Every structure is written in C-alpha cells, then in structure tokens.
C-alpha cells in the first residue's frame, strides 16, 4: 500500500497557531500550502456530514490576510481586479480574481470593504483581502509591484483565520457574539470586540453552507477555538472534508481547477468580471480576457457526475466518443450524493448540461454526464423571506 502525499517544500512546513490544539484533538497532520495542516480528525465523511447538518470549525490560518489602505485604494485595486471595488459598500464582501497581463488567473480571493464609518466623507478607505495560502507570497509581491506608493499593503501575519460553517453556525456564533448573526447576510462582514480583541466576521465560506470566517489575533485564537468547540453543535473539521464540501458546492480550487494558464471565462468565473468593467476595462489582463469574451472560450470548466463508485481524480482524461475533449481538474466521491463527482475543463462543444461524456480511469471508460453546479444546493443565508 502506498500513499503519495505530495511534499514540494524545500524547507519544512510551518506550524499553524493552533498546531498543538489540532494534534490534541486527534488530527492527522499533513503538509499543505507550506504548513502542517489537519487533514482529518474522526474521518472525512463523518466531518463532511457534520458540517452539512450542524456546524464545522475549520482552521484556515494558512490563508493570506491582507489589508490595502489609503486614499484611492479602490481605484488602485480596480486596476488589478476585474470586479467593481469602487461601488463595493462598507461591510460588503466580493469574490474577485488577481489576473496577469495575459488574463491568466494568479489567484482568487475575497475582498471586504472595511472602511470605518469616519466623518461624512467616510474614514480612510480600507480593504481586507483573503487570498490562498499557497499563493500568498506571490500575491503580495504582485500587489507590492503594482499598487501605487501611496497605497499601503499590510500582511496581517499576526492574525489567525477560522471558518465556522453549517446550518447551525449562526446560532452558535450568536452565543459568542450576540446579535451579530442577525446583522449580517451572505457576503457581508463586520468587526466586533471579543474578549478585548478585534474579531473580524464575514458571512461567507467555502462549503456551500451558511457560515462565517473569523479573523482573530493568532496568539489568542486558541481561546476562540475553545469557546466555539465548547458548543456541542460544533466539531473540528479537516482539509479533507473542506475539499469534498467545496467540490459538492461547485466552488473551484486554485491550482487545480484554475491557474495562471486559465482565463476567467474558461474557468467559468465570468460572474467575477463586473459587467460594466468587462467592456470598460482598466484592469490587468483585460485585453486578452475581452478577446475570449468576444470570441467565446475554446474550453470551459464544467461539472461531471459519474455513475458507479469509482472516482475520477485530477488529471483523468475526458472523452466524447473516442475524441479526447478535456481533463478532470478535481474530482472525488460525494458523501452527500453517494456517487463520484468532478470538475473538468472540456471543449466548449461538450459543455451543455446533460452531455454524455466518458472519463478514463486506469484504462476504464467511466460514463459521465455534464451537470450543473453546485452539485449540492447552496444553503447561504440571504435574509428572512
């Protein structure tokens, strides 16, 4: 039996602020994005289902937390991101992308307008970005190179990030920070004081469930993790379930479902290109991306459902009849649905929902059908109806 755990770091991985906390709770730790991270505690399927039914606590402190501040910060960010930042109101969160000159995706990220209320003109503009762990150093270098000198970029290295996800997450958080859940809907954020330190709260996540991302000082985060886990509705969840949950939710994973060689249209992330900015441009990579928009992409990211139980993993080739038409970019077994699912990038002619394709796994051709995503419906909180 062999287990091929990737190890691509020349120097050993770093420890997360909660390293000992994870180990004490039975986590199996693996190297990921330069850190020793918990892949699972009691088991991926049990953790997956717990998050879908109750509330799961994820340590995502490997991710980069950045602050961009200064007069003109919105315009400066709009030169690098294809989304509208100038019209993003304080307390609102938006999904966005960092693109290179060729329109390739350097990273995907969440940006929150955290500008304080201030006087009638507002306080000094401030934007909080959460970027992927594996790409954060490149992102910082890219931002430092391209942001004007008068804009300040701060890497919040002294802060940890937890995600509390699941249908019971709001009720749990409400016991720690009374009233905050009622104040926020999906893609809104705020800040509160909790036990004497600033707690950043964003109602977002990477599971398809309602939930929150919580930014708190790294040297105090164990207190926060303990307080959350003291609630019997909460269990710690590892990276393994994080991956199966996001796959069911149809959320792409950077470095797998898209990377520098893929533009946002091909990655089916056109929604992240704010409509009036698609034509107006003024963002890095606009020229090449506009051409793809005008001509249509050659390939596109789609969802696949597979029959049987054999999963198709990243790299598996996708066929239409005998013709190779693409490849799987991430895939696995869906605990919720009880069959394998995958994301694949395939020739545009074969991206229609219901198209019958096949996937090669170790010489076997598995029947696969193009399926709309999310595979499992999102359960975001968008306010009382």
């Amino acid at each position, binding site marked *: 039996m062999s287990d091929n755990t990737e190890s691509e770091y020349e120097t050993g991985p770093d420890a997360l602020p909660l390293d000992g906390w994870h180990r004490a709770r039975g986590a199996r730790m693996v190297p990921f994005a330069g850190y020793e991270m918990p892949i699972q505690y009691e088991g991926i399927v049990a953790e997956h289902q717990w998050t879908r039914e109750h509330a799961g606590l994820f340590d995502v402190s490997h991710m980069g937390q950045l602050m961009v501040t200064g007069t003109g910060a919105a315009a400066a960010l709009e030169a690098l991101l294809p989304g509208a930042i100038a019209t993003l109101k304080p307390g609102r969160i938006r999904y966005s992308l960092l693109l290179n000159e060729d329109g390739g995706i350097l990273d995907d990220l969440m940006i929150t307008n955290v500008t304080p209320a201030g006087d009638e003109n507002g306080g000094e503009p401030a934007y909080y970005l959460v970027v992927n762990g594996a790409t954060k150093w490149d992102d910082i270098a890219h931002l430092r190179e391209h942001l004007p000198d008068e804009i300040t970029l701060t890497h919040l290295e002294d802060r940890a990030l937890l995600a509390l996800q699941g249908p019971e997450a709001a009720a749990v958080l409400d016991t720690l920070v009374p009233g905050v859940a009622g104040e926020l809907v999906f893609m809104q954020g705020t800040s509160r004081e909790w036990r004497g330190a600033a707690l950043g709260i964003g109602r977002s996540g990477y599971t398809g469930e309602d939930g929150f991302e919580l930014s708190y000082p790294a040297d105090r985060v164990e207190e926060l993790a303990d307080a959350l886990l003291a609630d019997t509705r909460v269990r710690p969840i590892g990276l393994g379930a994080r991956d199966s949950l996001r796959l069911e939710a149809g959320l792409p994973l950077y470095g797998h479902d898209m990377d520098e060689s893929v533009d946002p249209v091909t990655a089916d992330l056109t929604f992240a290109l704010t409509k009036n900015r698609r034509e107006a441009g003024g963002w890095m990579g606009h020229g090449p991306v506009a051409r793809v928009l005008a001509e249509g992409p050659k390939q596109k990211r789609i969802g696949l459902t597979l029959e049987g*139980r054999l999963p198709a993993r990243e790299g598996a080739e996708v066929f239409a009849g005998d013709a190779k038409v693409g490849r799987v970019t991430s895939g696995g077994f869906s605990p919720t649905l009880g069959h394998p699912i995958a994301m694949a990038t395939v020739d545009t002619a074969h991206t229609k929902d219901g198209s019958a394709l096949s996937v090669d796994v170790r010489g076997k051709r598995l029947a696969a059908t193009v399926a709309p995503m999310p595979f499992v419906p999102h359960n975001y909180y968008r306010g009382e109806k």
Partner: protein
Amino acid sequence: MPRYFTDEHEWIDVDGDTATVGITDYAQSQLGDIVFVELPQVGSAVAKGKDAAVVESVKAASDVYAPITGEVTEANGALEDDPALVNSSPEDGGWFFKLTISDKSELEGLMDAAAYKSFCDSL
C-alpha cells in the same frame, strides 16, 4: 493458518498452496473512508511487490501490492457493493483476493503479527 504481514500494510493468510490477501487495520485507518476497491481479475497473474489492487478513499487512490507472486483465483465480490467493509472488517470480511502460491520461499521475510505490531508502533 499462519498470517503474515508486509511493510506496505497488506496481510496474507496461507492455507496450503493458496493464500488470502487484504489490507491491515492500520492501513484502513490511514486511508479513511473507502469508497471503491478495484480488484484484480480472476485468472490474472500478480507479482510480489507489484500493483495488484487499488483502494479509493474519499481522499485519494492508493495502490495495494501483491505480497507474493501467484495467480488470482477469487476476488471478494462483497467489496463491490460495500467497499466500506474494508474499514469495518479489514482483516476478515474485507479481504481483497485469493491467489495460488507460486513460490513458498517468498513468504520468508514477511512479518508475523508481533513483528508487524512493533513495526506499526515505530511509525
């Protein structure tokens, strides 16, 4: 019926000229939730230390090696309907395949239960 273990976490029960192969409890606990097992064809030849089966967990695909050389005489059909049997009963109902023993000397060098236990404890 003597049982031997490999350092790749397979077990093998020897019964005369045939043997039964599976993966150990330690192996299944490392793999986590198993969703699919790809077993060798009956009649196929497997070689000591070479790929014989594939275990798919939620997390990843892992190869299972043949502990000895031989010809596959039976595959555990129960794993097709219930691959999680490998998690719940790895060293009994969750066996993988049976094979003929080509060369008994290949069993030399495999571990017994006590040696395997101390091997796992050292990991």
